[in-house]
């Protein structure tokens, strides 16, 4: 079981790299988990973009207010 999960994650990571999504392995695992929960993939993609954007914004904020 563990081995299979490992294999699957490898395949998915490879895909992710090939498509240059910029997601880390940890993040990919979370995405797969969310998908397994039945989340709408379109929405999930939107969520990820949003989070990224917010993260950038927060980073920028943090940089401005040291």
């Amino acid at each position: 079981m563990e081995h299979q999960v490992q294999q699957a994650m490898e395949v998915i990571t490879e895909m992710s790299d090939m498509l240059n999504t910029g997601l880390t392995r940890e993040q990919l695992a979370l995405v797969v988990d969310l998908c397994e929960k039945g989340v709408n993939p379109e929405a999930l993609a939107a969520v990820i973009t949003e989070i990224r954007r917010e993260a950038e914004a927060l980073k920028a904020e943090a940089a401005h207010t040291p």
Partner: protein
Amino acid sequence: MNELLEQLVGTFVPSATGPAGRSQLVSLCHTLLTSRLSAAPIPDLFHTSEAVQRSLARAGRQSHAVAFADLVRRLESMAVVTRKWSVVHVLAALAETGDVPLPAKPLPRLLMPTSAGAASSTLPSAAVGLSAAAAKEVEMVRRGAGEGAVRAGSGNDGGVSENELLRDVIYALQGIDGRVVAFDKRAQAFAVDPRARVKAGQANLVRRVAELGWLYMRVKAFVVQASAAPSLGLVGQALVGALQGELAEYFKLLAVLEAQVAAGPGAHGQALTLRRLVVWVQDPLVRMKAVAMVADAARGLQGGELVSTIHAFAKHGDPFVAAFVESLLEQVCVPFFAMTSRWMFDGELADPFGEFFVVPNGAASADEAWHGKYELVDGLVPSFVGPDLASDILRIGKSVAFLRRACGVTDFAFDGALVGAWEAVTYASASSQLAGLVAAASDAVNAAVRSTLLGQFKLMPVLDICRRYLLLGQGDFVGYLMELLDDELARPASQVFRHNLLGILETALKSTTPIADAELADKLDVMLLEASPGDIGWDVFSLDYVFTGPLTTIFTNDVRAKYLQLFSFLWRLKRVERHLSSTWQRHVNSASALRQLPELDLVVRKCHILRNEMAHFVFNLQYYIMFEIEGAWTELVELLTSDRTHLDLDAIYGAHEAYIDRILERVLLDGSAEELLSLITQIFALISKFRTTQDVFYDSAMGEVARRAAAEARAYERVLAGEWGTTDKESDASASSYYQLTPQARAQLGAFNVKYDELVTQLIDMLNAQSASALRNLSFRIDFNEFWKSKRSSNP
């Protein structure tokens, strides 16, 4: 799920940031996930991977594309991941975002509520790889999230939103498959995809609206198919044009509906809903139903048939449909009326596709310009025209063509007002005006045809010549001609030559009552019938008339054959009459001489009586025939010269034909009274035989008279010479043949008498049995004093 989200946020956002911001972000993400984002295009792994491969290939990374396909295959074989498509889809959606620095724009409402809506709308959706619709949804949710209110599309979690259904329905109305609503070829209807989660009620509404789309597809298919057909024809083109106009109207409606859908729900208070749409499309639906009905019925039809078919729908009970069909007919009938007016006013067929109900008959020769050249095709007569009007229209066009081509009348034209009124005729006014206009045109052209025939082409004088010469009405001419022809026609038929006869005819014409119009007299001609062996000149001689120009339309070959038939009968009758008069001449000339032979008195008297009986019969037959001809002639003249304008060329021809037929019937030549005719022929033959017998008898009687005179002279001479005046030898030798003759002649005459009596009695009996009063009249003429009747009763 929240935990997973928190973790996810945690991987992106450095933990240094405040927990407040993080939790806010998590809740936003949650809202986004639970909200009804546009449904995924097609939850199909293969489809998505194909799309990815395509985009990789486009970017020039063929090897990656192949590798990706391989990876997908591997993933497919793994049981751990159940929602493989979702994973791949997320990856595909996030493709090429890894190293693109996103614009670091904070959510204005979320994190900086003070600067609300500043520049929130510019989201580079294309770069993100999200569909535009999804981006819009995100925008919406973001706005809604700022106010803390979650807007759910239809409240139907995971189902299809009403707006989306609306969009699909609008597609369906254009005959295009949408995401959820697609055309089911098997059921021949638009149906909601059973996999999509659509409420039954909504699906029902969709079906009701989508019927319009189905109707549209039918009409569209007809229009496409019909315009591609090479034999479409002008009426068909008009119909296609009209239908295209209908479709254009329909597209206008669709544009309005589409704009409403695009404005989206909530834009106004009056948002478009499925239910509202159902109501809105009711009228267009009825109209499109009518259009499709017409299109279905019109398939493969042409011209008049097409007009009739559409016209049948004008009686539709629904006034809405009836009005629509009438407006359609208005347009469809335009080429039809144009063709009709061209035909009626110019006598020309402008019908490249064979749609008009008048068709030319290619097989007809030039002589049949009137009778056979144009025909009516019943199936192509539009039902609102009807067979009577159609035949009137046919005749008007034929008359115009006749005037222009056969008669060479170039200046004939219809009254301008009439033409103008006709040009203005449309389908709507046709029912009230058509009959009147056709009648007016008919009157005008008939009057022109009649006056041309009677004036320029001298129909009446020609008819008169036919009666007087071909039907032997001109007594002095006929008598004289017979006298002149006597020698010529006594020869065998093979030795009779037309040119000799023509000379004689000319002489006869010159020395009798002249024909007023010399030009017409020149056309009298001699015709020799085909001779059978044993015929003499009398049997083949016939007078003829050379008909030219438009007169051949009235004097067709049929009619001329009838004239010939009549002539030959009347000619024979005249000849028999002539035989009788020659025997009478003989009788008168030799009467005083025969008084010297008192023993012949009885025979001569018998001859005389029989001849008188025969003469009585022949004269009465002749009177009867002349009376019938004159009667028919008077009627014909009255009909043709009266001022009745409805007399068209057909009627003129018909009147003349009826005149000839009536004479033929009365003269027993129409084939209905073969027996009567054969009796009469037998009587004629008997009369001829009687004449020859009498001639022989008179010859020998006159010979006897001469012999006696000579014998007497010789006796006188001998007496003068002092001898006996008479010798027995002499008288016996020559008298023996004479004395044999008397009983022979008597017996022959007796036989003639019996035969003649028999024939005439039979004839009278037969005439009395006829239903026609004219024939009974003939029997009365022949047996006016009941002589034959008494004879028959005394000698049964």
